[in-house]
């Protein structure tokens, strides 16, 4: 999947990071090409609530042309999306060992 420009947060750090892409750009990631998030589209399509759009603190889920799409690269690995998706459309696991977010402060 090509990276949407709205998600491309690399190199966007600044002193007062208001937008999510600026915040995520502060963090260290070892991005895995293998996504640790999977979306079951046929279930997702029927969902009206779409809580994933606002519970994800990294805004990994976006609405595009009426459909939810996701990007796993900025994931903070909190697990909120899977717990919130009452429909069970989100399959979420931890990224493979060594990959994903790496906090320097925490």
């Amino acid at each position, binding site marked *: 999947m090509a990276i949407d420009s709205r998600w491309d947060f690399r190199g966007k750090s600044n*002193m007062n990071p208001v937008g999510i892409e600026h915040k995520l750009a502060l963090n260290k990631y070892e991005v895995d090409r293998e996504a640790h998030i999977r979306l079951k589209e046929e279930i997702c399509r029927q969902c009206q609530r779409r809580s994933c759009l606002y519970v994800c603190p990294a805004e990994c889920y976006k609405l595009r042309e009426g459909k939810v799409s996701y990007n796993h690269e900025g994931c903070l690995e909190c697990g909120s999306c899977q717990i919130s998706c009452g429909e069970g459309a989100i399959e979420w696991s931890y990224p493979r*060992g060594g990959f994903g977010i*790496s906090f320097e402060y925490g």
Partner: protein
Amino acid sequence: MKEKFDAIVVGAGPAGCAAAYTLAKAGLEVLLVERGKFAGAKNMTGGVLYGPVLNTLFPDFWKDAPVERHISRQVITFLSERASLSIDFNSADFDTPPYNGFTVLRAKFDRWFAQKAEQAGAVVITRIRVDDLLWDKQQVVGIAAGGDEILASVVIAADGVNSLLAQKAGLRRRLSPEDVNQGVKEVIKLPRETIEGRFNLSGDSGVAIQFLGFCTKGVHGGGFLYTNKESLSLGVVVQLEALIKNSLKSIELLEGFKAHPTVKELVKGGTTVEYSAHLVPAAGWRMMPRLYTDGLLVAGDAAALVLATGRALEGMNFALASGVAAAETVKRAKEKGDFGKETLSYYEKLLAESFVLQDLKRFKRASQFLAIQRIYSTYPDLACSLAERIFRVDGNPKKNIWRLMREEMKGRVSLWQLIRDGISGGRAI
């Protein structure tokens, strides 16, 4: 690597490190597995590390461990949109050893703790995600990770709030949005002198501020600000269900919180260096899984051992206590040569005898009390507007405090309701 360990501990947070350290020190063969690049890489906290359990493992640990500041000032601040009212507790006793609590940055702290376990003789491997448990009939006999299988007499699942292992072992149901709170946090760099001047601190003393009200737009949750040596930890924690129900984003709450007139001054001139998020298993007793089965023990956040009463948020101390209790149970099981669930039930007995289960049980009604919306909206607003009426001089004749209070309460909450909430709060927390 060894063919079979006495114990495999999954997750190098406080629970896992405490378990691995205690077992290694007793001479058992123990493997500590961590999925992050290093221990602590996946962890963050929005809480305070209270000292008693860690101090029994490492007497005077604050001299050696990378803690940030000891908490000598504890503040509760009610926020309305444009004002704040604080209860500010400052204690010379909290400012002297053994201290009460500490601020920590987990990427540093957990790394130190895992090193301690390693020095005691534990084998520590990082960058390894545990994919599954290995079973022999009803008994857990090891782990599967990255295509490898590693055997052990017992596995301790200290794999955090999302504990995939406790779920896979069938000890826990799926988590629900009412069970957990979502915390988001920024670490904001400031010079040491600025922090000490701004917060009235000296040396390594620090402050913990809990906020209630505007920081969560009046929904179930709160804000926090902790001083570290050369940074502040600022964040909001909101029940996941409250985010869903009110279509709120934590990140927007955090921005609103940072822009509040009171908070803005506290973080002024700082540079954000990290943004993190994590879940807190806040429902405690109500969401607690079964704590053990044949060959498996569950500790720390994985077992939902967090005390969230609003009065305190205590997770790391509980995690440490449960890690030690799990290790003591395994030591005993090794002596008996039996790792079945009857032997491992000693774990629950130990926890029931300690503050861990006693606190969780005593405060099990706290989550009902904390579901009262007025705590997050009506009362912080009322406190601030009443304070404003009391302190304002506007040239009109003044009224006494009782009269002002009745006027401010009008249309917001009845006296009867206020008294009832006060009593149930006093009992629940």
